Structure formats: structure tokens, C-alpha cells
């Protein structure tokens, strides 16, 4: 129970009297800030993080171009937020669960999701783990402990609290990290999740990517407060605000958050201050709501550039390596895209599987009726879904004989 002191005159506390500092380690020039502790990031890990950041950027650029060419129906870029997502992921144990919002492909890249796996989902082909049922960018991987993305905003936040509670009971020292934007933090799910996590002492890291915009709505129209971080006080929760474009700060803060979560079974809120350099999605046009000047100012704070300067300074990266990596990744993405595009969609039967653990008789009847209909009108339906189903190339007469 909270203890309170008594007052005898009406003394209000104003919400704007609090301001939360920002943890920053690396200057934009890639040198350590004055007074900053030495980074805990070692050479190999730093290189792995850097490669994942570049790979994510390359993937995003190529896929955005593919969307513009009409090869993809939809895409979302992580551009500008790579340090926040990948820095945090690198500080987790690889068996910790990640529940992402939708802009965290960098976490998957870091954990080893291959370009082929990305492409299979983006094109919804027969190899997509999600069987072509969701829009592009709704990735998931059981092997990599990455929960399949769900479109409704913020629903993953209370789920993360529940998942982490199960991890606590299992006692295997794992936690859940859940990512969301500052816009999602306006949903009721956010409150539900943080409150339950604090009350039930759950090892979960709430990672808010405060990237300035919820589609077109600027943060200033999302909340009157000093960002999202102060809400942690209301839940009696540990909280830190970090420079989300500073890889060393994000990594170190998440390391510490994980320690608090796992060793003390306490939730932690991290607010990473960053900027969505790209559009919200391929369907969005930011020129309608923000200035090019603003974007340019943030482009100078590019998290990849900042890390690159630091890496060069350490002697951990070179121009040659950069060139080789960029070229190789571009080639690999294109090759994977071509492979995925050629693959057929999932077979028609997947329309009715996984609704329930077993296909129900009613669903089976509906599928049979659909197949019979397609056999009568083969020209009206895409060839793709019929490709793997020889039964559908027969006519109804043949089917009955």
C-alpha cells in the first residue's frame, strides 16, 4: 500500500511539473557523451546488430519499391526506428517472447528470419507460415519466439502480460517484450496491460516506440503529458526514457530492464524517443501532414549513420565491408523476392483449416460446395489456388463418375 502524507490546505500537484530525462550514450557524431559509461556492447554483437540494421533498411527499400511497382499489395517500413527495435531485441535472450505491433521486422531480421521467410509472408504463398491469410508484414515465427502480428492496435499488450505471467509460473527465467507505438498507448488495452502486469508482478518489458506520429496524428494530439513514460508512475512501475536512435542507450536500457523483469518479476516501461522517417505504410503520404524540413532534420539523426560512425571509430567496420554487405543484401532480397513470387498460393483447403483444431462438418460441407462451384466455373477463379488441387481441374461430371 502507498503511504501518503496529510496536508491541510488544498495543494494540487500539477501533471506538468514532472519531466523525465532521456538516457543517451552516443552523440550524433558517434562518440560517447560526456559522462556516459562505457558501452556493454562487444565487437561481435555490435557487428551483428549493425548488419541487422542494414539488412532491415535494404529489405524495406526494396519492398517499398516492389509495392510501388505493383508487385506487393502493402508494405510498412521500419526506417528511422532500426536502433530502437534491433537494439532492444539484441539485449533480450533469444528465447524471450517478442510481441510486436507491426513495424518491428528488425527484430525478426536480428533473430535470423531469412529473406525467403519474409517474402513468403509478403506474397502470401504456399510457404507462408500464416498460409496467406493476413496482409503483408503480418509475420510470425514460433521458432524465433515472435508472436504472429495481429492488425488490431494494442491488443498484443495485455496478451504480453498474460504470456509473461505464464513464463513466470513456468520458472524458466524468460520474459516477454512487447512493442507498440505511442498511438497504441492511447488504447484501453495499454492501461489494462500495465495495470495487470504491475499488480501481478509479471516479467514483461513494455517497449514504446515513440516515433512522433500515429498515421497522421502527431504525438502532441495523442497526449498532453510528457510522452508515455510518466504513466508508469501511476502503475508503480519501473520506467526509463531512452534516445531511440542511440543504439548503445537502447541496448543498455533493455539489458537492465530485462534484469529487473526476470530477476525481480517486475514489469518495466521503456519509452524510446525516435522518429518514423518513412510513411506510416505504403498507403500513406506524410507530405499531407508534416514538412519536408522536419523530416530532413530527423534524417540527420539517422540511427544507422550514428552507429556506423561509432563502429568506424572502434575499428569494427570499414567502407569495404559496408559496400560488400549492401550489395550482397540487395542481391539476396531480389533473389528471394523472385523465388517467392513464383510460388503458388496455399491450396484451397487452407480456407477452412485452423479455424478450429479440427475442420468441422459444416466447414467441410462449405468447402465441398465451393470446390464443386469452382469446377463449374473454372475460368472465373484464379488459377493459383487450383494449382495444387488436381481435383479442381476435373469437371463436375468427372467428379461424380
Amino acid at each position, binding site marked *: 500500500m502507498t503511504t501518503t502524507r496529510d496536508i491541510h490546505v488544498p495543494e494540487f500537484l500539477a501533471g506538468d511539473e514532472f519531466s523525465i530525462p532521456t538516457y543517451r550514450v552516443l552523440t550524433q557524431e558517434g562518440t560517447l557523451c560526456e559522462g556516459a559509461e562505457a558501452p556493454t556492447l562487444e565487437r561481435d554483437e555490435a557487428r551483428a546488430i549493425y548488419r541487422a540494421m542494414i539488412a532491415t533498411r535494404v529489405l524495406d527499400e526494396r519492398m517499398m519499391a516492389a509495392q510501388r511497382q505493383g508487385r506487393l499489395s502493402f508494405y510498412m517500413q521500419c526506417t528511422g526506428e532500426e536502433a530502437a527495435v534491433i537494439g532492444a531485441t539484441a539485449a533480450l535472450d533469444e528465447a524471450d517472447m517478442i510481441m510486436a505491433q507491426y513495424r518491428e521486422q528488425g527484430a525478426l531480421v536480428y533473430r535470423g528470419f531469412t529473406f525467403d521467410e519474409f517474402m513468403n509472408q509478403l506474397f502470401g504463398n504456399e510457404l507462408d507460415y500464416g498460409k496467406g491469410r493476413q496482409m503483408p508484414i503480418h509475420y510470425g515465427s514460433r521458432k524465433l519466439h515472435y*508472436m*504472429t502480428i495481429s492488425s488490431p492496435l494494442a491488443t498484443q499488450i495485455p*496478451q504480453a502480460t*498474460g504470456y509473461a505471467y*505464464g513464463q513466470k509460473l513456468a520458472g524458466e527465467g524468460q520474459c516477454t517484450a512487447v512493442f507498440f507505438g505511442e498511438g497504441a498507448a492511447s488504447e484501453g488495452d495499454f*492501461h489494462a496491460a500495465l*495495470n*495487470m502486469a504491475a499488480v501481478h508482478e509479471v516479467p514483461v518489458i513494455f517497449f514504446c516506440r515513440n516515433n512522433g506520429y500515429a498515421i497522421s496524428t502527431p504525438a502532441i494530439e495523442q497526449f498532453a503529458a510528457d510522452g508515455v513514460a510518466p504513466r508508469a508512475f501511476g502503475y508503480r512501475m519501473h520506467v526509463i526514457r531512452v534516445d531511440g536512435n542511440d543504439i548503445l542507450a537502447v541496448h543498455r536500457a533493455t539489458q537492465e530492464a530485462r534484469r529487473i523483469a526476470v530477476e525481480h518479476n517486475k514489469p518495466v516501461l521503456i519509452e524510446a524517443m525516435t522518429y518514423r522517417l518513412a510513411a506510416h505504410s505504403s498507403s500513406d503520404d506524410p507530405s499531407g501532414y508534416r514538412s519536408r524540413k522536419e523530416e530532413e532534420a530527423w534524417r540527420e539523426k539517422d540511427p544507422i549513420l550514428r552507429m556506423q560512425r561509432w563502429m568506424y571509430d572502434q575499428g569494427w567496420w570499414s567502407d569495404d565491408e559496408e559496400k560488400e554487405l549492401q550489395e550482397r543484401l540487395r542481391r539476396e532480397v531480389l533473389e528471394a523476392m523472385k523465388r517467392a513470387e513464383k510460388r503458388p498460393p496455399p491450396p484451397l483447403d487452407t480456407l477452412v483449416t485452423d479455424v478450429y483444431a479440427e475442420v468441422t462438418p459444416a466447414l467441410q460441407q462449405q468447402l465441398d460446395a465451393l470446390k464443386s462451384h469452382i469446377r463449374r466455373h473454372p475460368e472465373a477463379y484464379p488459377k493459383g489456388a487450383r494449382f495444387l488441387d488436381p481435383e479442381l481441374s476435373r469437371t463436375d461430371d468427372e467428379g461424380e463418375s
Partner: protein
Amino acid sequence: MPTMNLLQAINHALDIAMAEDEKVLCFGEDVGGFGGVFRATSHLQERYGRARCFNTPLVEQGIVGFANGLAAQGSVPVAEIQFADYIFPAFDQIVNETAKFRYRSGDLFNVGGLTIRAPYGGGISGGHYHSQSPEAYFTHTPGLKIVVPRNPYEAKGLLLASIRDPDPVIFFEPKRLYRASTGEVPEEDYQLPLGEAEITKEGSDVTLVGWGAQIEIIDRAVELAEKEGISCEVIDLRTLLPWDADTVAESLLKTGRLVVTHEAPQTGGFAGEIAATLQERCFLYLESPILRVTGLDTPFPLTLEKEYLPDHLKVFEAIRESVNY
């Protein structure tokens, strides 16, 4: 065989499930030490500890969101929504998340372990926020199973089956019967099948279909009808999604007449689905129009509750109308 009321039967089922599998957890508003406002979870916290049976904050979307995550992790959550009327704040988590978890991930992840228990229905002077029957909203959502027991024996067997079912289940408990319905319930573990209707009484002139508390109403109506020489067949649907149309169709082929009754308002109610399906399957065998006896298309009233509810007399009138068409 001991006699139990419906609440005791539910408590018994939860006790068995928790004793058998340490992954089973019970939680919700006032569920912990107090044992739930209706006492369905009495003594479970004492027996299984605060980690497995606990109070949650007052936040239905949080309860179901938390339960979704827990189930995805491999636990077996049994979440209580204190009144079915308060399930709507959790609607998004149930309809967009619970129901689609397996489908949208291609079965990489599922929340099959989840059971949501919620007391539903009228007859307790509860007004419109303590009396609703919201089952039809959920029967429109593929991926959920909707189960409604009619008495203590059914409640225990169906709840145990729901907890162990590989799909998420919403278990609507007829709260009017919590203490009013008593009967013999085996001490031991048993399950009743989900997705199967039960013919609780055989007859030849007219088929009556209902679920939950409405079966008791049907039984009283049938008593009146049989005094007039009308032979009634009674079917308890038990599971509304996926529902057992075959059993109803077979019955209808025999009787040629169908009356469906539920407490929820008529428009968009589940009786409409049953009527549509059965006219499709049995049109040429029908001797009279399929009739619905339901609540009115209004919010649930307080003082005029008895008039509002589809009672045995209204069902009896429908039987007569059906037979005399």
C-alpha cells in the same frame, strides 16, 4: 451420487481440472479469496494458491487479453467475466484475437486452452445490465465454441470438456439456475461432448429446440402440451457454435414442426439461424412454419421481466399454433 446445484457442479469441475493439470488457472473479478460473486470459484485459491486462482483488476479487455496471452504461452486459463453483460469491453479481444489466433498464424500459435465463463440470462430481477443473453454476437464469429449447460450434471461435464477442448470456448452459465437447479452429479471426472445436441425427450408431433435455462421452460410447456395429447420432442443444443444441425434436422424429418426459443431479442438471434438452416434442409417435410419464441427487440427490462421473458405459456401457445396450423 451426490446432489449438487449448478454452482457446486461448476466449482467441482474447476476443482478437478486444477487438480489434474497445474497449467489450469482461474481468474477474474472477485474470483480469488471471495470465490466469485456467485461463489463458483470458492476454495480454489485455498487449494491451489494465489498464483493459480486470483483476482484481477476490473478490466474485462485486460482479463481476456491476459488470458489470450497465457493460453498462447501454453497455460490453460479459465477466465471469469462476472456477468455476460460485461463481456462487451472484451469483445475485440474475443472476436479479433481469441477467435482468430490459430487461423491467422497458420497454427503457429493458438489459444485453444482458453475458456471464458460468464453468467447469462434473466429471471433474477437484474435489469438490462445483469440479464442479457449475448450468445448470438459470438455465434457469428468462426473460431469460437459457444457452450451453454442446462443443469448441474451438464454443467460439470460440459465445463470439463470445454477446459480440455483444443479450441477456445465461451461458456455461458444460466445464472437464474445457479442455485435453483439441483440434481445428481457424479463425484468423478466425466466429460460431455461439445458440438453435439441432446434429445432430452422423444416425441412425434413437434420439435422444440432451446439451450440453457430455456430448457426448463420448454419442459414445463411440454407438460401442458402433452396433457392436450401433443407429443413433443425436446432438443437441448448445448453447443451453439459449431451447432448440431443434423440432430435437429433428423428430428424435424420425423415431426415436421419446429419451435425454437431463446431469451435474447428476436432480430438477429440464434433462432433465426436455426430456422433458416432447417427450412433449407427440411422444406418439403415442414407441416407448419418454424416458430420463434424469444425476448422482445428491446433492452432487457427490470420490473416487467416476467412479461418480457419467453416463458412456458408462450412456448406452449407456440406449440399449439404449430400443431394447429
